[in-house]
């Protein structure tokens, strides 16, 4: 009984995703063989989805809070430019990183404040910060690439530990840590409460404003990390980085089981969502399919995932009534 509950209620979506991914994986391995399941290919897939992984991770927090954050792509670009410019100016790497991270955190918190204190709809508030930050990025660079970054910085994303790309290590470890904390840490737990039912949360003495600001702050922070990885990976800062990433992030988290209603979402699911999307794109190219379809695919997958979930819950509630 107990396990059953864990099994269905907590991770139902993740299980479904895992199965789908496994099926694709096996199928591809059978068809393409070595080409596909070579450790190289797998690690590449992961290395390439590290940015999305971080963004989706942050987005999951926001969705758990019952909100949404359209500004992640812009935060990514903006902080990326901040850090690269500072480094260009000859600042010490650590210091530059810290400043960038703080900037990202600030941007996120700004969203949180606008939403929780001034009662602006999350969509609108983050839409505003989205265009402001994107604009600022262009103002700062007037479109030029920012290059000439120190190797110590560039090596952050390009380096390897035990033959595994730092990008994978960093993004996955952050993901896992937050994933674990999300259910084990007080602050994160309270996000579920606030998102689940803000009235009940209020009557249970949980400070929802503080929780929300924290949530959006983390989202901004993760976007920044993603921006740092991207800039150091390509060895350049650019104002157009991360355009349209917010939609991908939302799609991934929702595929992973988060819902706009709030109170739901788990990080395993989100990670699997990101992986699934990336995998399908990879499969497309493997078969020389036109990548034009990739956007369509993520849209369709989104619907399918939601539909599947609906069926599952319907089935469950039927069982519940018996």
């Amino acid at each position, binding site marked *: 009984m*107990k396990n059953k509950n864990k099994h269905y*209620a907590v991770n139902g979506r993740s299980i479904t995703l895992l199965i789908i991914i496994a099926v694709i994986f096996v199928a591809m391995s059978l068809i393409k063989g070595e080409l596909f399941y070579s450790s190289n290919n797998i690690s590449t897939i992961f290395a390439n989805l590290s940015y999305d992984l971080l963004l989706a991770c942050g987005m999951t927090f926001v969705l758990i809070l019952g909100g949404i954050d359209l500004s992640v792509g812009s935060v990514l670009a903006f902080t990326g430019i901040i850090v690269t410019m500072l480094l260009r100016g000859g600042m010490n790497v650590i210091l530059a990183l810290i400043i960038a991270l703080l900037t990202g955190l600030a941007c996120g918190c700004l969203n949180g404040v606008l939403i929780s204190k001034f009662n602006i709809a999350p969509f609108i508030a983050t839409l505003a910060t989205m265009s402001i930050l994107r604009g600022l990025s262009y103002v700062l660079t007037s479109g030029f690439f920012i290059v000439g970054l120190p190797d110590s910085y560039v090596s952050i994303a390009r380096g390897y530990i035990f033959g595994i790309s730092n990008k994978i290590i960093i993004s996955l470890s952050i993901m896992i840590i937050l994933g674990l904390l999300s259910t084990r*840490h*007080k602050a994160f737990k309270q996000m579920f409460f606030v998102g689940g*039912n803000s009235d009940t*949360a*209020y009557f249970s*003495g*949980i400070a929802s404003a503080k929780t929300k600001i924290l949530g959006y702050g983390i989202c901004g922070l993760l976007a920044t990390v993603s921006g740092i990885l991207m800039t150091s990976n390509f060895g350049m800062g650019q104002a157009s980085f991360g355009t349209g990433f917010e939609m991908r992030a939302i799609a991934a988290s929702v595929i992973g089981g988060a819902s706009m209603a709030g109170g739901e979402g788990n990080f395993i699911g989100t990670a699997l969502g990101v992986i699934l999307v990336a995998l399908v794109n990879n499969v497309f190219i493997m078969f020389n399919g036109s990548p034009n379809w990739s956007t369509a695919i993520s849209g369709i997958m989104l619907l399918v995932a939601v539909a599947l979930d609906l069926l599952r819950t319907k089935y469950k509630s039927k069982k519940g009534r018996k």
Partner: protein
Amino acid sequence: MSLLELKNISKSFGDNKVLTDISLSLEEGEIHSIIGENGAGKSTLMKIIGGIYTSDGGEILINGSQVHLHNPIEAYKAGIGIVHQELSVADNMTVAQNVFVNREPVNFLGFVDWKKLNANTEKEFKKIGIYIKPDMLVHNLSVGMQQIVEIVKVLSQEVKILILDEPTSALSDKETQNLFELLFKLRAQGTLIIFISHKLNEISQISDRVSVLRDGKYIGTLNKEEIDENRIISMMVGRELDNLYPHKAKSRNGQVVLKTEHLSRNGKFDDVSIEFKAGEITGIFGLVGAGRTEFAWSVFGADRIDGGKVFYEGNELNLKSPTQAIKNGIAYLTEDRKRLGLFLGMDVKDNAIASNVDAVTNKMGILDNSKIYKITQKYIDSLEIHPNNCEDSKIYNLSGGNQQKVLLSKWLAANPRVLIVDEPTRGVDVGAKSKIHNILRQLADSGMTIVMISSELPEILGLSDRVAVMCEGKLIDVMENDNLTEEYVLTKAFNKGGAK
């Protein structure tokens, strides 16, 4: 052949039976009052007639022919209109729009004829002798006026059967009188009016017949000449003791922990001064609109205070939020389990710790799962929550009784000094009920100060050491609970000819 006939209507929510074969026949051109304590099943019955709920068993006949009502639209088609207890107006619209929603006079373009609309609206209001600007936005109206808009909305539909569920709870005397005048007019036109109220004087004033419900069962009907307030009361009370109540407090001279002085909240309750002692259960009884819950909210910091003071262990307290209340050891168990009490989508252990997460977190803020499970298991055992391994099951998979127990454990986990419980056994099966009663008593014995808001007389009398009675926002009386009778308390609660 009567206009509306109910045959063996039954309804239960989950495992909680709300109505058991109610059979009633109501004639056209009568004002038929339905009375009973809270939770007697009146509103449920009305919702079934109004097509909002569908009954589990039984049938509804109109003019002898059976009808099946699945939604309000069908009910209106069948000529049934309900004035709901809870408001169903859209406050972003004008009065006129609310009254004639979806029935506005329109031209071929579907354009609303505002002149006509407003004129009609004014006409409808004149019928109950009220003048109101039809183009006023509803959210600029007082709750009372909103209630009237609600009533007028239904009245304006020329219904054969008009159901009024607590229509006067928010009305002034004048408005009430006007409403009655109108009801008499309608009666004369042959409309059947089903009238639900907690104000005995109103009922005896206007009803042609009075039917009494108790515990979701039909008790009896009194004809015009038989109607007598004491008789009604005696029919309402005497709910069979579904369980033995625990012993009373050993001593009644515990220290005063919580005290209010002239506490007031505009339009909710007024000038309430009362003391709550440690080791006692103080029951607060009252009927709908008595202001008990509102009082509790203000004490708990969930709503603001417009006047008066709250003292906690002698020193004044002004709480801005429940958070502070909980820090001070004051807990409030809400009557609205689903909306304000529990996180339905989350599992039992989460709910159990919700209001005191700190207790299970270390300095790093990391939750200690073993602790969580320990605490949850503790309450699961002590409150006998079923199934006894439900730590990880979602709340919505539990029965009402067990949900209530989880809610209780949530507050016990916050180990408060003052525990305010609001309708602690609403919608709860017999077993769970007595369990909860015993727990409350144990807590009191352990020195906790318990405040129990309840609408169930037996519960009030059976459990509490002192009984406070509120009526229409005022504290009527506080009585030591020695040989109090239900009649006496209920009479107080109706505040017949009382302070008003």
